[in-house]
């Protein structure tokens, strides 16, 4: 792709284009390009060797940011271990809740799903179909006269039910919400508080679900959700597409939160632990 004749100068524009195209953002790309120029100031700066040196600098800079955040989701002694999924609309929370439930069920855990998205059309039904597919009980409440049930009430019920049934893991799905909607962010905080009342320390994992196609707004999303409820882990979905999810680098740098896993498809098994080297390889590939 970035062709290089034997003694041609390294095509810095092409390197920069690759990085910008991956949604790394100007704030991340400009300093990396400065480092590349600095290392190319020393030999070798041309041809194949120069190109390799440039890409090595890029790889190292990216790993520097991402490697410290590589930290797979592990359940602790807390029982049930409560995982709450949160994020903006359409990012893949419900599907990821099902994937996590599938993973833990296969590991021999008893898993309960909580259908705390009581707002969106057929959100509860969507999780119920998943629950039936993967063999996990789904806790839900019927809609009230005014609309959906209270999401905090469903969350509370889910934790209580999980405790009563001796569940090992609870995956609590919440409604998508734009981080700029303060009333919805308050609702999310309330769900967290209520879950903590049902089980002190819960939710043990507050998982931000990010769509890999997101551009620079992903950083704002991470900031706001982190400020609101304290994000303990990030999942990036839809990495089976062409988007590279490069905004993750800025997020890792700024928030220093664990990046747990990546979503690579629409089936229950399409969830892989985040590996910084593989992520960087795919980004630069």
């Amino acid at each position: 792709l970035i062709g290089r004749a034997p003694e041609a100068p390294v095509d810095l524009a092409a390197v920069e284009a690759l990085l910008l195209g991956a949604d790394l953002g100007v704030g991340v790309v400009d300093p990396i390009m400065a480092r590349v120029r600095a290392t190319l100031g020393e030999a070798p700066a041309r041809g194949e060797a120069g190109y390799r040196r440039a890409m090595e600098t890029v790889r190292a800079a990216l790993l520097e940011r991402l490697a410290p955040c590589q930290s797979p989701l592990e359940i602790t002694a807390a029982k049930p271990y409560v995982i709450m999924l949160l994020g903006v609309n359409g990012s893949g929370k419900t599907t990821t809740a099902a994937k996590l439930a599938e993973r833990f069920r296969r590991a021999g855990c008893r898993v309960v799903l909580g259908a705390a998205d009581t707002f969106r059309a057929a959100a509860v039904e969507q999780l119920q179909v998943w629950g039936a597919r993967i063999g996990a009980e789904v806790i839900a409440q019927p809609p009230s006269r005014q609309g959906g049930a209270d999401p905090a009430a469903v969350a509370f019920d889910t934790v209580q039910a999980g405790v009563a049934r001796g569940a090992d893991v609870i995956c609590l799905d919440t409604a998508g919400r734009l981080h700029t909607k303060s009333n919805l962010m308050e609702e999310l905080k309330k769900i967290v508080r209520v879950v903590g009342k049902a089980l002190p320390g819960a939710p043990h994992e507050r998982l931000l679900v990010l769509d890999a196609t997101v551009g620079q707004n992903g950083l704002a999303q991470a900031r706001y959700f982190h400020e609101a409820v304290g994000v303990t882990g990030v999942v990036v979905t839809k990495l089976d597409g062409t988007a590279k999810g490069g905004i993750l680098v800025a997020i890792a740098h700024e928030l220093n939160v664990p990046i747990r896993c990546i979503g690579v498809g629409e089936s229950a098994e399409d969830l892989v632990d985040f590996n910084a080297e593989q992520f960087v390889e795919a980004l630069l590939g």
Partner: protein
Amino acid sequence: QLTTRVQSWVDRLRRGGTLSAEEIDAALGQLRTTLLDADVHQEVAASLLERVKSRAVQLRVQESLNAADRILALVGQELAALMGDKHRPLRLSSEPPTVIMLVGLQGSGKTTTAGKLARLLKQQGRRVLLAAADPRRPAATEQLQTLGRSLLVDVLGDASTQDAVALCRAAVERARARATEVVIIDTAGRLQIDAPLMGELKAIHAAVKPHEVWLVVDGMMGQEAVATARAFAGAVGVTGLVMTKLDGDAKGGALLSIRAMTGLPVTYIGTGEKLEALEPFHPDRMASRILG
């Protein structure tokens, strides 16, 4: 109405009186960051900067009075030119039913937009049929049926079928039989690189020959917007764009980028989760959103 960030470099430039080459470069550097942070595609940003630079340099030669404001006016003009015309209202076919097909990546807002469009058309006195043509996503049919019920709009759906093509054909036939004026087809989200699923889209298109194929794009989409739009356009002849979730703080640079690189017209924008939240596209508002 320029925002504070842009105003602050106007002020910086103004204080200098005339504009030097260095000052022009600094302004362009700031503009580059603004555009890329707004998710404008890097090629679109680069060519916009080139055009602004060549016009700004000429300005410097001609006159330096209010050059800073002139540069910003140039930027505004270039953005407006790229944004193109305002919303073109939907024209119904003289041979009903008019078939509108919604396509796009997973989670972009197609099903919700289908509901919003049905509500709008019904308000305009049109008879509408919604076709739930997503055979894969759990409870996708239920989702559209729930929206249809709330609007008292018919939905053709069959949660047990895998055959999206047959369902779409049945929807158009039903519309013809009942003199329904518009059929809105909600398709499953898919990756543009998924050959079998793009094949399904082409098969639906060939079977029902939609009058409109609208690509539904998430307002927060980044640099892959242009490649994605081109791929969908190449597969099924997209006739319009809908950008959703613009009620958030995403700048929506993907919209400018797709417009600049494909020329596709923008139909509506989604500004909320409720079915009322569908608005006509205003190019000047999107332009100032990007510069904000």
